[in-house]
């Protein structure tokens, strides 16, 4: 039984269709990265999975429970780590955890709090109010709070958005630990590197739908080929390079100040100019080609 099954899910907010015929299946035990630009429908998908948003069309099953009817039962078996910090800032670290252990009906609250403190590496700060913690500590606590009841399924909504690189690396190692324990993880992100580093499989989402899905290596091979050539130069010259490559049937994408010719290994002589920087094709190439948006 898949941990998550969505079929033909549609969710509208007035005139805006945030999720537009979404099909998505997440097998138990994998970490699926839901990769997409802002506004692709990732956060709405997360809210649909907890029953905090109700789909207009389609069916949703989470851990075998049909949503929204059995959403509360499903929520009891999943852990949610939100995009925005919603800890109780005046309350101590351990009380924040204890409240959620109770909300999840954990039989031994004390034991669960100890375990979560170990995960967050905050045992020595247990009696401090949350607003005394650093940003990185708060993020670790937020993650540990979602794991306090040993969930079978973990939803991570943009777990490292807006964080500095050091805190991001800390969280990545925590998420890595979760994967090694065999938890099923659905992680939305718009950071390519995060998906590449953590996800067994990636589903690229745009305009409320999954437009490509597979292991990062497979997606690269299928959509970008082996090699990408980045060409730097004045705009007029880049426009010429672009036109020539496109005439030769190659995909070209902007890459900051440069243009990137994707699938450069297939290019005929003269299409990729001298001085271009050749590198292995990346998930970023796939993302930009498929979504038309520059990656972060």
């Amino acid at each position: 039984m898949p941990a998550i099954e969505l079929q033909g899910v549609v969710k509208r907010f007035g005139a805006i269709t945030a999720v537009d015929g979404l099909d998505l299946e997440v097998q138990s035990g994998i970490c699926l990265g839901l990769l997409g630009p802002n506004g692709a429908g990732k956060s709405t998908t997360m809210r649909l999975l907890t029953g905090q948003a109700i789909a207009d069309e389609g069916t949703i099953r989470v851990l075998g429970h049909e949503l929204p009817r059995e959403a509360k039962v499903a929520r009891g078996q999943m852990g949610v780590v939100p995009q925005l910090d919603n800890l109780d800032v005046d309350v101590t670290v351990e009380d924040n955890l204890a409240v959620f252990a109770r909300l999840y009906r954990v039989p031994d609250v004390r034991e669960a709090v100890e375990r979560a403190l170990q995960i967050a590496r905050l045992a020595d700060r247990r009696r401090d109010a949350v607003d005394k913690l650093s940003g990185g500590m708060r993020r670790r606590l937020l993650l540990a709070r979602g794991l306090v009841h040993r969930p079978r399924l973990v939803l991570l909504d943009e777990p490292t958005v807006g964080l500095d690189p050091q805190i991001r690396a800390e969280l990545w190692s925590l998420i890595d630990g979760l994967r090694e324990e065999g938890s099923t993880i659905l992680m939305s992100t718009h950071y390519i590197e995060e998906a590449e580093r953590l996800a067994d499989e990636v589903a690229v989402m745009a305009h409320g739908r999954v437009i490509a899905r597979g292991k990062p290596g497979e997606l690269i091979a299928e959509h970008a080929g082996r090699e990408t050539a980045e060409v730097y130069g004045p705009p007029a010259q880049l426009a010429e390079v672009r036109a020539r490559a496109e005439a030769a049937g190659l995909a070209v994408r902007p890459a900051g100040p440069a243009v990137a010719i994707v699938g450069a290994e297939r290019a005929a002589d003269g299409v990729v100019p001298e001085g271009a920087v050749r590198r292995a094709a990346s998930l970023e190439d796939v993302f930009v080609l498929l979504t038309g948006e520059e990656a972060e």
Partner: protein
Amino acid sequence: MSAHEIGARRLEGAAIAGVMSREVANFRTFWKAVTFSSVLEPVVYLLAFGLGLGATIVDRVNGLEYVEFVGTGMVATAVIFSSALPAMFGTFVKERFQRTYDAILAAPVDVEELVTAEMLWIGIRAGFYGCFPLLVTLLFGLDPKPAMLLVPLFGFITALGFAAFGITMAATVSKIDHFNYVTTLVVTPLFLVAGTFFPIDGLPEGLRVAAQVNPLHHLVELVRGSAFGFEAVDLIRVAALAAFSAVMWRLAVHRMERRLID
């Protein structure tokens, strides 16, 4: 899965207790300030009204010393101000600014349980702090009576309704500033036309009728009943307050479901 799977029933006690435990954890960080003002406010009012107004302008009201009349009436004031206002502001802040409800509703708790827990907690708090004016009035010379032990219960039942009213308002307004309309148009009139500071018998016909549908007026009468003797009609007052709270409860749940679930 076991027969009593988590989240399989409506209004689960464990979910309600969990949400209330969050309130208790937060309350532990600011109870001193609440207690301080709950004690000091009735003292200030009773000094001003009792010794000021009572000693100079007003003599006795309905056969009671003015301090005793105001002191017992002020239980209702304390109850509405420690239920409707915290419910309004607290709910709005938790929903909009702290995103607390997002976190709670991601756990096996639904909106009905969330609202019920918030109401119960505010009801208990207001039932407790509502007694302070009465305790202060005892110090000003009111005779203690065993029936006064019912006052926290009367306060609790009424506070449930006003907590639900506050939650309903929080789920309705789009900006926190709009609470000014609610306080000016609803809360202040209710508190003034409750028979706290002056008996409603002397009011014009229209206001007397309005007072009869004011839950706070019935609370005032019940508290005075506990101090000076109940009447048969007080049973109807208790039933009316319970009905008020039950209706407001359903309304609060309904409004919050619309606000919190997309």
